[in-house]
C-alpha cells in the first residue's frame, strides 16, 4: 500500500517536473534557439556580401557599433555638463566683479545623440498617433452607427487607405510650409510634417475596425437601449463604446504599428531629427561604420515597435471588461 502510494507520488512529481520543463522550454529555450540560429545565418550571409563600404556588418560589428553609440551619448552629455559648469563659473565671476552685470544663460547646442533621436522619434509618432486617434474613433463610431454616413464616407476611406506615406509627404511638406508660419514656432516644421504624415497613414486601421466594432453590436443590447429610450450620448457611452472596445483596440494597435513604420520614412524625407534621419545621414555619410550603425537603428526600430505593441496590449487588458478573453 505504502509502496504503491510512493510510486504514485514519484509519478506525480515526475509529471509535474516534465510539465515545468515543457513550459520553460516553450517560454525560454525555443525563442533562444531561434535567435541563435538567426545570428548564425546572419554571420554567414554577412561574410559573403562585400559592398562599396566594405564587408556587410555581422552581429559582432553591430554590437560594437551600438556600444560606440552609447559611448558617444555619454561623451556628449559630459560635454554639455562641462559647458554649463564653465558658464556658471564665468557668470558668478562676472557678478562678483559687478553685481549690476547682466548675465546670459545659453543653451548647450551640441549634437543630438542616438538616444535623443529615439526620443524625438517616439515623441513624433505619439503626436501623429494621437491626432489620428482623435479623428478615427469619432469617425468610426459615426459610420458604424449610421448606414447613411457609412455609405457616404466608405468610398473615401477605401481610396485613401492604400496610399503610401511617400505620396503624402511632398504635399504635407508644402502645405505645412505654407500654413504653419509662426515666427516663434512651438514645433519644428519637420516635426509637424512627419507627425501629420504619420497621422494620415495610421488613421485607417482604427477607422475600419471601429466601424466594424460599432456595426456588430448585439441586436438585443440595441433593443434594450431603445426600450430605455437612452439619449444618443448615453447610448454611445454606455453601449456602443464598451461593445466596440475590443475592435477599437485592435485598430489602435494596427494603427500604432503602421504609424511607427511610416514615421521612419517620413523622418528621412522631412529631415525630422529622429531615427529616420539618423539612417539617412549615415547613408549619405558612407563611412566604414555606416552600415553597422544603420543596422543598429534597424534593430532598435524593431525592438521599439515590439515594445509599443506590447504597451498597447497592456492598455487594452487594463480597459477590457472581459478578463477571460485571451488577447494576443
Amino acid at each position, binding site marked *: 500500500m505504502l509502496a504503491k502510494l510512493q510510486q504514485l507520488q514519484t509519478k506525480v512529481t515526475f509529471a509535474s517536473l516534465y510539465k515545468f520543463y515543457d513550459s520553460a522550454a516553450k517560454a525560454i529555450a525555443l525563442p533562444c534557439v531561434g535567435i541563435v540560429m538567426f545570428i548564425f545565418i546572419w554571420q554567414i550571409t554577412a561574410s559573403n556580401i562585400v559592398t562599396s563600404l566594405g564587408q556587410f556588418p555581422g552581429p559582432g560589428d553591430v554590437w560594437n557599433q551600438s556600444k560606440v553609440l552609447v559611448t558617444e551619448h555619454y561623451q556628449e552629455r559630459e560635454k554639455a555638463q562641462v559647458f554649463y559648469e564653465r558658464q556658471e563659473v564665468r557668470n558668478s565671476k562676472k557678478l562678483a566683479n559687478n553685481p549690476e552685470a547682466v548675465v546670459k544663460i545659453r543653451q548647450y547646442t551640441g549634437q543630438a545623440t542616438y538616444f535623443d533621436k529615439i526620443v524625438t522619434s517616439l515623441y513624433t509618432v505619439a503626436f501623429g498617433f494621437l491626432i489620428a486617434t482623435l479623428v478615427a474613433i469619432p469617425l468610426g463610431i459615426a459610420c458604424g452607427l449610421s448606414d447613411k454616413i457609412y455609405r457616404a464616407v466608405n468610398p473615401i476611406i477605401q481610396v485613401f487607405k492604400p496610399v503610401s506615406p511617400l505620396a503624402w509627404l511632398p504635399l504635407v511638406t508644402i502645405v505645412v510650409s505654407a500654413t504653419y508660419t509662426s515666427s516663434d514656432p512651438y514645433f519644428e516644421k519637420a516635426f509637424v510634417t512627419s507627425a501629420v504624415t504619420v497621422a494620415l497613414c495610421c488613421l485607417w486601421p482604427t477607422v475600419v475596425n471601429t466601424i466594424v466594432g460599432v456595426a456588430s453590436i*448585439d441586436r438585443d443590447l440595441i*433593443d434594450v437601449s431603445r*426600450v*430605455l429610450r437612452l439619449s444618443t450620448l448615453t447610448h454611445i457611452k454606455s453601449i456602443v463604446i464598451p461593445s466596440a472596445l475590443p475592435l477599437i483596440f485592435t485598430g489602435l494597435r494596427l494603427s500604432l504599428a503602421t504609424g511607427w513604420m511610416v514615421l521612419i520614412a517620413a523622418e528621412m524625407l522631412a529631415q525630422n531629427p529622429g531615427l529616420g534621419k539618423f539612417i539617412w545621414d549615415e547613408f549619405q555619410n558612407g563611412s566604414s561604420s555606416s552600415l553597422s550603425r544603420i543596422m543598429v537603428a534597424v534593430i532598435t526600430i524593431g525592438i521599439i515597435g515590439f515594445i509599443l505593441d506590447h504597451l498597447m496590449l497592456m492598455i487594452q487588458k487594463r480597459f477590457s471588461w*472581459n478578463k477571460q478573453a485571451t488577447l494576443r
Partner: protein
Amino acid sequence: MQNRYLEISQVSIDFPTDGEPYRALQNVTMSIQKGEFISLIGHSGCGKSTVLNIIAGLHQATEGGIILEGREVNEPGPDRAVVFQNHALLPWLTVYKNVELAVKSVFKGTKTKAEIGAWVEHNLELVNMTHALHKLPGEISGGMKQRVGIARCLAMQPKVLLMDEPFGALDALTRAHLQDSLMEIQAQLGSTVVMITHDVDEAVLLSDRIVMMSNGPAASIGEILHVDLERPRNRVALAEDADFNAYRQQVLRFLYEKQKHPATTAA
C-alpha cells in the same frame, strides 16, 4: 370585455423580401386586462415574437396598431419593458449597474440619488439577487442573469411586462424556480404580463389566458384558452389535478393535431 388595458387591434405585418412582401401576421386582435397574465404559444416561426415586438414598439405593424390605456403606442418605451430570451444584460456592467442604468433613464429627475439606489436594491431583492450586486454578468449563472433581466424590467415600473421566452435557455430545475418566483412577484405587484413560451406546462401553470397561434405565413390567433385555476398555484399539487391536465391536453391538441400541417391549415 369591459376592461381594455392593452389592445392589439387588427395587427398585420409585412416583411420586405426580394419579391412579394412576406405577410407574417394577419389580423391579430386581442384585448388584455390589467393584471392579466397572457401566454403566447405556437410553433416556431408562427410570429409570436413578432407580436411581442410590435407591442414593444420594436417593430412597426403594417396595418392596425397597439393601444395601451387608451393611447396608441408605436415606438419602444419603458412602459413596455422587455425581458429578452438571452437576458441582454450589458456584460461590462455589474448586476447593480445594469439595473441602475434602467432606473436612471426612467426616473431621471423624479428620484433622488439615494432613492435610485434604494429602488435598484429593492428590485434586485424581489428576484433574490442581492448577494451578487457587484458581480459581472459573466460571473453568474444563466438563471441568475435572467433574474437580473427581470429585475431590470420590474424596476422600470412598466405598464406591461413583455417576456420573450424568458426561461427557454435554462435547465428544467432553474426554470421551475424562476417560474415560481415570477408567480410570486406577479401576485405581489399585480403586473400585466405577456409571455411567449414553447413550454405547454409553463403556459398552463402561469397564465390566465393562453393565446394559441396558427402557423404562418399570415399567422393569426387560432384559439384562446381561459385557465381557471385558483391562485396561488402549486406545481406539485397541480401535476395530478384533473383540470390542469385537461387544459394541458387542449393546448397539446391544438399544437399537434390542429396545427400539425402548417401548409394546409394556413389561413
